């Protein structure tokens, strides 16, 4: 207990013998100020003062727990009301359809991406020619407007012939003055992977532009012809993509219908909740006013407002409003079944290999998404068919929705969702990866300092490592953002390090970066506590082992380490607690994306951005209104953090306590 206290808080250890707190019986007569039958002595006052302060401190700390608990737990009933409104109005159902639609849209985006990449691969010249032509067209519009008008006004004949030759030449000169670099820059938006403009493409674009000018500034048919040719030659791919696009239309229509139907109901329900709240408050106020015999004007004013509030309460028949939703959803099974079969058929027509490897990879990703979509649809179909708007939402539903909800989405106009899972997994992931780095280093250092280092060396290393503990986290965060983020990304692209899972990293701010910085913060904590645990191993153990002829290393690893293992585990746990509670570093470098990281990528998951429980509080405190559900949700997250740290701390104290007794 004592040692823990000293180490964890870095407090000087002084060899103490037990003080006796009882004062010896004083021979001096106690005579103080007598007041209302109380004997007030200086000692009594001083004791009262100190005691008062002590209880003030204890009360303040107790108050934290109560306040957190109260603010947080208010969230559960509030969330229940919100969830039940979402159910009654049908928003919950719409969300389920939206899940399916999101899956479909992700798939469509991939296929589109592949299509565009393939098109660029096969027809880069034609594509760039068309875009170049558009550039030239703008130039002609700017500079040759008068020339074109003059040319058009001419009568047919030799003069016109000569003028056309001159105009052609002028345009060619004007177009050739634009440097290739400039053209590449303006094309970069539309053809990002274009590195060089081929002379043929440029020539073709120029011809088209000249035709445009001579044709009285009307887009020549040849442009459209090129587009048609491209889409014809893309053949099967084109048909497949059209098929995929049209397959999703009924689903998006269904979603739009549902949104239209449910949004209004939800709005009215929310309004009514507000109104009934203010009606209750006004009724209360009216009662109080009557009791206090307030002037009649005040009472009339309150009654007026009450009447107004009652008037604005909108009577709605949720039963009637939900019927169209049920009607719309009847077709859902048919729609999704068709969607699945259509998608499967469309994917079958696509070849498995493309000339361009990138395209093959993207299409394979899309195929994988298609498989996932089928699973999602199968699950949601069941959910949707089982859904009833009048099923009751109870408190445990709300609790489950919070603790196991896989989505944290706030500030959306549709519906705020508070699910802890993305934040919790984010915190856990960052903390475990950082311990992966910190634990070997810190334990190794503790063994070295305690077992092998010279006394003077140890006296230098120990304060050095303790010094690290004092580096403010915001400084480390800034270092991460400005220096390490760039370095890490650069290193991750080097071919020497490509064997590391997750490399190369695409996101600048990610789990790995946060974990590295946090490891640096956790290592001193783990080091100090582990070193102390090693220190507590009785000397006799070491001496016995050495006497048996074991080397120093064997003694350290096979005798000292096992003897102090519980202390070391406690040290690691406290390091974990410190990392989980760290705010600024993760806020600055972990990427702040509230989504459950994709563990399907294996160890590559460390390259993704995450949000954590601590950083969500620091990020969203500014946007909440006092007492709102969002505010309460943040307190709930704080409560979870509080509980985690209390559990870790008290467990560790017990372990360390037992060891030192």
């Amino acid at each position: 207990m004592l040692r823990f206290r000293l180490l964890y808080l870095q407090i000087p250890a002084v060899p103490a013998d037990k003080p006796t707190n009882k004062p010896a019986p004083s021979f001096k007569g106690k005579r103080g100020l007598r007041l209302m039958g109380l004997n007030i002595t200086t000692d009594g006052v001083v004791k009262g003062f100190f005691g008062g302060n002590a209880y003030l401190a204890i009360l303040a700390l107790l108050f934290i727990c109560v306040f957190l608990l109260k603010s947080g737990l208010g969230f559960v009933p509030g969330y229940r009301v919100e969830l039940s409104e979402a159910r009654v109005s049908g928003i919950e159902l719409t969300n389920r359809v939206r899940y399916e639609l999101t899956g479909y849209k992700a798939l469509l985006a991939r296929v589109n991406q592949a299509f565009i990449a393939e098109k660029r691969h096969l027809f880069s010249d034609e594509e760039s020619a068309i875009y170049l032509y558009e550039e030239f067209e703008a130039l002609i519009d700017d500079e040759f407007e008068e020339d074109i008008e003059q040319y058009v006004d001419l009568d047919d004949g030799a003069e016109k012939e000569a003028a056309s030759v001159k105009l052609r030449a002028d345009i060619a000169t004007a177009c050739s003055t634009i440097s290739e670099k400039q053209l590449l820059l303006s094309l970069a938006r539309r053809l990002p992977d274009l590195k060089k403009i081929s002379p043929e493409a440029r020539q073709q674009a120029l011809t088209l532009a000249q035709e445009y000018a001579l044709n009285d500034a009307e887009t020549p048919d040849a442009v459209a012809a090129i587009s048609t040719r491209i889409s014809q030659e893309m053949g099967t791919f084109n048909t497949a993509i059209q098929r995929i696009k049209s397959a999703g239309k009924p689903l998006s229509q269904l979603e739009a219908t549902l949104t239209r139907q449910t949004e209004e109901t939800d709005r009215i329900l929310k309004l009514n909740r507000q109104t009934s709240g203010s009606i209750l408050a006004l009724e209360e106020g009216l009662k109080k006013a009557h009791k206090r015999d307030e002037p009649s004007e005040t009472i009339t004013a309150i009654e007026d407002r009450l009447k107004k509030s009652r008037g604005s309460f909108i009577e709605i028949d949720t039963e009637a409003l939900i019927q169209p939703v049920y009607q719309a959803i009847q077709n859902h099974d048919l729609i999704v079944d068709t969607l699945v079969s259509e998608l499967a058929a469309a994917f079958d027509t696509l070849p498995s290999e493309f000339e361009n490897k990138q395209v093959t990879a993207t299409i394979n990703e899309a195929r994988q998404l298609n498989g996932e979509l089928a699973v999602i649809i199968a699950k949601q179909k069941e959910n949707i068919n089982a859904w009833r708007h009048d099923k009751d939402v109870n408190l445990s539903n709300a609790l489950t929705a919070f603790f196991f909800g896989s989505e944290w989405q706030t500030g959306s106009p549709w519906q705020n969702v508070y699910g802890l899972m993305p934040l919790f997994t984010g915190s856990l992931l960052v903390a475990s990866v950082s311990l992966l780095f910190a634990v070997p280093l810190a334990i190794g250092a503790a063994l070295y300092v305690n077992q092998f280092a010279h006394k003077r060396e140890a006296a230098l290393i120990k304060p050095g490592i303790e010094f690290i503990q004092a580096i403010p986290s915001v400084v480390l965060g800034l270092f991460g953002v400005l220096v390490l983020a760039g370095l890490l990304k650069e290193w991750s692209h080097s071919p020497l390090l490509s064997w590391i899972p997750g490399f190369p990293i695409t996101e600048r701010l990610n789990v790995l970066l946060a974990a590295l910085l946090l490891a640096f913060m956790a290592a001193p904590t783990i080091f100090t506590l582990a070193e102390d645990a090693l220190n507590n191993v009785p000397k006799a153990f070491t001496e016995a082992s050495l006497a048996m002829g074991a080397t120093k290393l064997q003694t350290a690893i096979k005798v000292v380490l096992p003897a102090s293992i519980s202390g070391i585990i406690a040290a690691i746990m406290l390091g974990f607690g410190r990392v989980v509670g760290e705010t600024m570093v993760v806020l600055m470098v972990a990427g702040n994306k509230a989504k459950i990281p994709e563990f399907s990528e294996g160890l590559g998951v460390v390259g993704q951005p995450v949000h954590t429980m601590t950083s969500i509080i620091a990020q969203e405190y500014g946007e909440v209104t006092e007492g709102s559900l969002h505010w309460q949700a943040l307190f709930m997250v704080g409560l979870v953090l509080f509980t985690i740290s209390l559990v870790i701390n008290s467990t560790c104290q017990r372990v360390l306590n037992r060891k030192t007794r």
Partner: protein
Amino acid sequence: MTASENPFKAKRSWTQFRGKLGVGTFGAATYFILFCAVLIFGQIAYKGLPTFFKSEAPYVNTEFFTSNPEILRVWHDAEGNKFSMPDKDFDIWREKNPDAVILDPHALNYSAGGIAGPLVGTALLVFFCMIIALSIGISAAIYLSEYCGKGRIMSLIRLSILNLAGVPSIVFALFGWGIFCHAAPVIVDHVDERSLFAFSIGSSYLSFQGWGTSLLAGSCTLAIMVLPVIITACEESLRAVPGGFREASFALGSSQWQTIRKAVLPYALPGILTATVLGITRVAGETAPIMLTATSTDKTDMPMQALQNEGVWAFFTQSVQALPFHIYTLAKLPDDPLSKPMQNGATFAFLLLVMGFAFISIVLRNRVRKKLKW
């Protein structure tokens, strides 16, 4: 076997080699941690030092320490030369050169001036926080160590205080934000709508509407955060004073308060001082609590101005700038080479400040360990 060979000479064995390798690895781990620390510290110092100095006399960039953060104006002239100037200089310059060509003008926030405001803000926060925390913490420690016994309840209380020392600062921040910024009592003439409840006292009201984002709320939050550390550390140093001192004092007939004042506190003072510095190190480095409770980005004037213009209460309920939050703001600036000197300079100054306190606390602690042996 020849006679000249020493039979007791240690044999080179695999086991020994492995032993050396193992020790080498552990040593490498140790020095790797220290190496990282030196690297980070060196990088920040190397980047930050140039901001502290300038090329002409007096060589120290006093402006950096004595002026507030400012907007930096950047523009080109017709020849493509790049100009940059702090906002206030820019106005003067513009008046002097009304015909100057200004192309592509843009402003970089917080990229000129200095860190005086944040520095003063941090000092104020730490100062008031320590006043609150020490006055409550030392008294509580004296009570816990000298007056109350060692009962079950007391040890439970000690354990809970210890537990609270490990709670993440963001939780304390959240608490302080909820209580001090939004629910603390305040005397006002007009009750705000968001007040929890209000009593009328005479012509004004005691309203529980909180102090808002303010110096007072920030200091209180930090004080509550550091209270467990202070209590535990002070109690430890009080307990370290041998019981014989107290017994001797009681034997001479002194009362308990006299004993504490004359026989216990003087010997515990070095320990309490260490605890104080330790507390300052912790408090000065914290960002999350003050971010939620005390700082705002649109504060630009010095805190003293409120004291002069509006009185003491306004002084305590104004928001302040603070160095750690300032660094956080700087970290979010768009990547521009002209913003770098401020970023690096402020970071290095802050690091030096906190490390200075950490250094003092480590030195003090080692001295206490060596000296105080009864």
